[in-house]
């Protein structure tokens, strides 16, 4: 009887627990409406696997049109630090992981390109999204939520939540909307500054006080056993090994750096699409070939100091962004592939993943 009384008391006490949350919105770039969007309870991913990461909504502040500095003025990067790169005409920019670790999203404009460079430090995935959605430009912020330990950005125009690796809205007004991908390349700082010595690099003068260059997650990037949240693991490769993933629907194919040891070029047909993958110890890039491009034969000509990457049988020379720099197709681009770099574990956590070479 006494035990029942105690248990009943504890139950009564526990039943008092509750939570609540609210939002007040002020004027923000990319957000016309200052009324908080109604909270949507409908998710296209299992809600029980969506977790609060801890810092809260905008606790990790995304950057909007930040400052850049020329390569020669950058002193906060080590040669082995990774950067994400983008090119639009002569405008070439690098977004170092060292800053993205602390901000996760950079909303930027390069000429006519309105891009959100999204980066999740917990999955190592860097993906570019077009910020023009349904004809309106938005900015993305960090929701503070995670799915399979991966970043969930939110767009400030509708407050819809998006899965970074799934590249689609998973909650809110834009539920089901796919992100329009913008190609990024990932390489180390030493390679980047050799390839693009005249490029612009994200400045540490972000307006936020952070210890850029010191990872907020310790040895997370290299410790295969360290995870901050539960997520599926796949034993085929070390969890934190960096791979290049090509995604197609619910499927993906992953490529390792070691796949490019004997040959820097891989021609693939995956899910009925033709791909050209080019890799070396410093980067892996991929392009989807269509039309006449599928008939081209490519030869690896990269010398480590020039942006030139491959030459084809027509005499065209193509750079790392898939742009023909010389030859009869000068100015043309190889097709973008739906692809990104990331830690191995994160690909099979989201996609049915085939590993190149078995």
């Amino acid at each position, binding site marked *: 009887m*006494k035990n029942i*009384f*105690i248990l009943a*008391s*504890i139950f*009564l*006490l*526990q039943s*008092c*627990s*509750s*939570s*609540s*949350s*609210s*939002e*007040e*919105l*002020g*004027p*923000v770039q990319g957000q016309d409406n200052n009324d908080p969007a109604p*909270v949507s*309870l409908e998710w296209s991913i299992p*809600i*029980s696997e*969506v*977790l*609060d*990461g*801890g*810092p*809260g*909504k*905008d*606790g990790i*502040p995304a950057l909007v049109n930040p400052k850049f500095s020329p390569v020669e003025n950058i002193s906060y990067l080590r040669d082995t630090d990774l950067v994400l790169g983008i090119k639009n005409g002569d405008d070439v920019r690098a977004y170092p992981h060292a800053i993205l670790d602390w901000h996760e999203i950079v909303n930027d404009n390069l000429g006519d390109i309105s891009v959100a460079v999204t980066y999740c430090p917990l999955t190592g995935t860097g993906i570019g999204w077009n910020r023009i959605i349904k004809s309106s430009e938005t900015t993305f*912020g960090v929701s*503070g*939520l995670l799915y399979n330990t991966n970043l969930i950005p939110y767009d400030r125009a509708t407050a819809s939540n998006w899965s970074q690796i799934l590249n689609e809205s998973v909650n809110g007004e834009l539920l089901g909307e796919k992100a329009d991908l913008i190609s990024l390349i990932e390489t180390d700082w030493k390679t980047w500054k050799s390839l693009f010595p005249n490029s612009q690099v994200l400045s540490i003068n972000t307006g*936020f*006080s*952070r*210890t850029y260059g*010191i990872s*907020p*997650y*310790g040895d*997370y990037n290299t410790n295969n*056993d*360290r*995870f*901050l*949240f*539960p997520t599926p693991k796949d034993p085929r490769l070390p969890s934190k090994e960096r791979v290049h993933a090509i995604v197609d629907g619910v499927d993906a194919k992953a490529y390792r750096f070691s796949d490019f040891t004997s040959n820097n070029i891989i021609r693939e047909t995956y899910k009925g699409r033709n791909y050209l993958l080019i890799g070396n110890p410093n980067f892996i890039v991929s392009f989807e070939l269509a039309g006449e491009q599928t008939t081209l034969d490519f030869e690896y000509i990269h010398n480590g100091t020039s942006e030139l990457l491959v030459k084809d049988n027509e005499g065209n020379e193509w750079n790392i962004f898939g742009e023909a720099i010389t030859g009869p197709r000068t100015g043309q681009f190889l097709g973008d592939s739906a692809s990104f770099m990331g830690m191995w574990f994160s690909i099979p956590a989201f996609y049915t993943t085939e590993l190149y070479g078995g």
Partner: protein
Amino acid sequence: MRTLFVLLIISILAFQGFAQTCCSGGVPLSNNLGLPNEGKGVISLGLNYDYNNLNTLNAGTTKLDDSSRQRITNSVLYVMGYAFTDKLAVESLLTWVNQSRTISQFGNQSFTETSGIGDGVILLKYSMPEVLGNGTALNLGVGTKLPLGKSDIITEQGIQLTADLQPGSGAWDGLGWASVSKGLNFRPSATVSGSFTYRLTGVNNSYLNNSATYEFGDEIQINLGYTDQFLMFNTIFNPGVVFKYRKALEDKIDNQGIPNTGGEWIFIRPELAIQLTPNIAINSRFELPVYSYVEGTQLTPTFRVSTGISYLLNTKNELLIK
């Protein structure tokens, strides 16, 4: 013993009624342990309110220029002690916790809070007066932290919050406690004291819908204090100052350390207790960090304020009266 048990349960229920109408508690468990043994048969009751404000973002010992994140913990702590003998006593601590997280960024404000019963503590204490010399008292205690609080609260949207926003830890902890005090010969009204608390944390095996285990870092706390006494308006005042050292080890998920958890702090805490009657005293404390070292980058305490009232009930005397 049965009387004590019934009193404890009544106290819990009374506390519940209070909690529903008032915000409270941040689980400063170690701060609120260590009632003195007031003698055989004496019941000590205490009700404390604690406000803990974390609005300072540190990287190691460096304060970052960023006040966009704020964590506030309101706690109500109900302490009850009973002395079986002049040396052996038991002490219990029940808490009600309200924790909030406010992000003020880009002109927006995002607010999340949880409220509920927090974890409790039971501590068995043994006093050894004069064992370290004339005018000294040495107290030793062992106890446990009971996982009374919920550790799986979800938001209205259905999203489970992280461990440090939950009212409870979901784990049983072991507690070791020791305190020593000595009256000063050259100033009989003054006492110097010290206390040591070690919290050996347990593991929450049902974290995040049973998908992981979570363990808060072990915690050490050392207090060194000086208290004096003076009479004013026919009332006894006890001003004091305490230096508190606290070290917390890193938290673990699935037995792997979590970056940006754990650290070391030194606080200074002026405090004042006023003896309103022989049985009733009120107290207030203000705690400021003088040294903060956090692992990685973390919010760290900015200040803490607490106040409370305590009441001594001598059951033996009452029985005699009856």
